[in-house]
């Protein structure tokens, strides 16, 4: 539906498809880099979330539907490349939740800064994964993990937000943006 409403404004061009491809491959690369980094596993679902950079950048410069497609593609392919079937569910649960909150907050980007939006997204990403873990392992008390989720979201989210902000600005300056910056 989102696609149809935007059809007139932004027809699906070769340019957009190229951007989708570039973002997906970059997300997968970041995903791979993150797996190489020795980040301590503080709680199930807690991670650096480098690939969130792509979601945030895509949401900033691409139509909503394209960013959505990138998210699904990277979750799916990321699981294929390493992780396995159950990680699709985890990845989607975290990805969708953080995508929804970030796209909602981005509509009010005049009052929310990119790092803050990213922090909210990071928290929701971890929350989605932990909710999924709660479904898989019953009698799993998710509240115990709330404090650690908040702290890690503040640290990693802010960091990711700053990087995304710099990336978006660089892209805009480069005038390579696929569509006009019409996303509100």
């Amino acid at each position, binding site marked *: 539906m989102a696609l149809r409403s935007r059809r007139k404004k932004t027809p699906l061009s070769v340019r957009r498809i190229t951007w989708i491809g570039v973002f997906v491959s970059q997300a997968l690369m970041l995903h791979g880099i993150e797996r190489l980094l020795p980040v301590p596993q503080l709680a199930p679902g807690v991670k650096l979330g480098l690939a969130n950079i792509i979601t945030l950048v895509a949401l900033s410069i691409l139509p909503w539907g394209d960013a959505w497609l990138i998210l699904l593609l990277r979750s799916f392919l990321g699981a294929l490349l390493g992780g396995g079937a159950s990680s699709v569910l985890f990845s989607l649960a975290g990805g969708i939740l953080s995508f929804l909150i970030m796209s909602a907050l981005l509509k009010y980007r005049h009052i*929310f*800064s990119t*790092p803050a939006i990213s922090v909210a997204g990071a928290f929701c990403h971890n929350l989605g994964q932990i909710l999924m873990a709660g479904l898989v392992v019953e009698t799993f008390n998710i*509240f*115990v993990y709330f404090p650690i989720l908040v*702290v890690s979201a*503040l640290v990693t989210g802010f960091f990711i937000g700053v990087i995304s902000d710099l990336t978006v600005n660089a892209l805009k300056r480069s005038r390579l943006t696929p569509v006009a910056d019409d996303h509100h």
Partner: protein
Amino acid sequence: MNKYHRNWQNRYFKPGDLIIYTVLIAIFALGTAITVSGNKTAASVAVVTSDGQEVHRVDLKKVKAPYEFTVELGGGHYNTIRVENGRIRVIEASCPDQIDVKQGWISLPYQSIICLPNRLLINILPAQDEVEEIDGIAF
């Protein structure tokens, strides 16, 4: 709008951010509160079952005044149980072997009193939000 914007034209902080950070801090506090209170309350719940039916459940740490009650199975079979702060025991029973009475107090997770003749079982549950130290016990 413009004036407003200019005042807050900081790249990494805008007024709305306060909302996001406040919500997160609230979640932090909520999680901490639940964890702390959960540790206090869930740590030693005793469950009494008679012939497979739960007949009594008490949080031993919340017992203020000691009390006693009797579980009857029918046919003259009974066990009288005493509960005090932090511990529970059988003080009188109709069973011939009296093993349950002799066993005395139990107070720690996984400890149990079993009275086979009267099909009575008293279990102390492990804390829910801790990782279970063991899954079961061979006795």
